[in-house]
Structure formats: structure tokens, C-alpha cells
């Protein structure tokens, strides 16, 4: 049941707990799945020079990002024995405490889902053209740097 057709990656605003619950629920019909590995990115209220990050505003180069996510999907499906794979990232404003990234990988045995999920998160941060603008109180901001 490899889902190689293009999947919607971007979500307007935060990814809600309810959205993730529906994602989990959908997989209950796939009874060959034994393990789900799920990574969630949450916006932190980091303090930078005494100013607190209140939200991150995400933008993307959508055509290139979708192509890049597609390449990561294909690579991970050939490398690991996984059954399902979902990647979601927010666009626009996501407040501190809210979720901006959800990678959800399902497999028969746990090690495939765990390794694939970790690899996707690493590649996504490096290869997918998304930019986060850290919004402080008022109108100030700075462009986020991934470490």
C-alpha cells in the first residue's frame, strides 16, 4: 500500500492535535501495520536578545518544496520497508506552543518506521525550501537559522 501519489504537504497555520488524531485513526484499517513513528515540531518561545519569540511565520517556494518532499518520499520508500508515510508542514503564522511539522511513518516492524521518520526529519530541514520568520512582540522579526 505504498502511497506514491503526490500528497498535500502544506497546511495553513498550525497543525492541530485533532488533525493528528484523525491521521492516527485512519490507519486503524491497515492491519498489517505494527508500528507508527511520529515526529512533531513545536514552536518554542526562545528568548533572543531579551525578546521572546511569539510565533514563526513560515513561507516556502512551493513548487520546489513539493518536488523536494516527493524526492525524499521516494528515497525513503525504496530504502526502508514502510507501509505509509505522511509529511505535513505549516505555512503562515504558528504561535509558540503550536505544532508546525508532523512526520508520520508506519511499518510492520518498529525499526523501519523509527529510522525512516528520523531520516525524513533530517532531510526535510536541510533540503526543503521553507523559511521561518521569528516574530517578536510588536513588528520586529528575524529570520530563523536552523542549527
Amino acid at each position, binding site marked *: 500500500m505504498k502511497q506514491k501519489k503526490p500528497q498535500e504537504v502544506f497546511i495553513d497555520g498550525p497543525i492541530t492535535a485533532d488533525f493528528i488524531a484523525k491521521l492516527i485513526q485512519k490507519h486503524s484499517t491497515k492491519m498489517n501495520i505494527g508500528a507508527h513513528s511520529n515526529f512533531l*515540531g513545536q514552536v518554542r518561545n526562545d528568548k533572543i536578545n531579551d525578546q521572546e519569540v511569539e510565533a514563526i511565520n*513560515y*513561507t*516556502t*517556494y512551493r*513548487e*520546489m518544496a513539493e*518536488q523536494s518532499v516527493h524526492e525524499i518520499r521516494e528515497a525513503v520508500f525504496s530504502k526502508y520497508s514502510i507501509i505509509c508515510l505522511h509529511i505535513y*508542514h505549516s505555512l503562515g503564522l504558528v504561535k509558540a506552543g503550536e505544532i508546525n*511539522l508532523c512526520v508520520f511513518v508506519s511499518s510492520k516492524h518498529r525499526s523501519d518506521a523509527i529510522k525512516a521518520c528520523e531520516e525524513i*526529519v533530517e532531510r*526535510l*530541514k*536541510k*533540503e*526543503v*525550501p*521553507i*523559511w*521561518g*520568520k521569528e516574530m517578536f512582540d510588536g513588528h520586529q522579526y528575524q*529570520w*530563523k*537559522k*536552523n542549527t
Partner: protein
Amino acid sequence: MKINLLSFGQVADIIGEANLSITDIQNTEELKDWLIDKWPKLQSIKYSIAINRNIIQENTELQNEDTVALLPPFSGG
């Protein structure tokens, strides 16, 4: 020859336009010089260049209707 120039993140902040149409630029080295000439602040900014969604590593000739994107370091995830 017409090139679509897209810019993102901090680069778009400096250029002030996310989408420009430019002419008479033959290759990416020439483009970089033209950009710094027009927006000197770009000199201090690190960015990659993608032609038609593929990041290039060295000087590349441009074709009519190419889409060239200026990409500061990614910070998604």
C-alpha cells in the same frame, strides 16, 4: 531573453519584490554581479541559486523563460 527571478526570505526583504522579470543576463555569475550592484546589502547574505527548481553549484548559462530563485538558508522543520 527574459528570466523570471524569484526571491525568498531575507533576500526578498532586501530586494523588496518576491517576483521580478529581468532581461539581458547571460549566466548566474553575471546575475550575482548585477544583484550586488543593484542591492549592495546582498553582499553580506548567503544564498543559493536554483534554476527551474534545481539548485546549481557553479556558473550556469541561462535560457529564455528560465525561472531563477534566490534561496537563503532553509529554516523549516
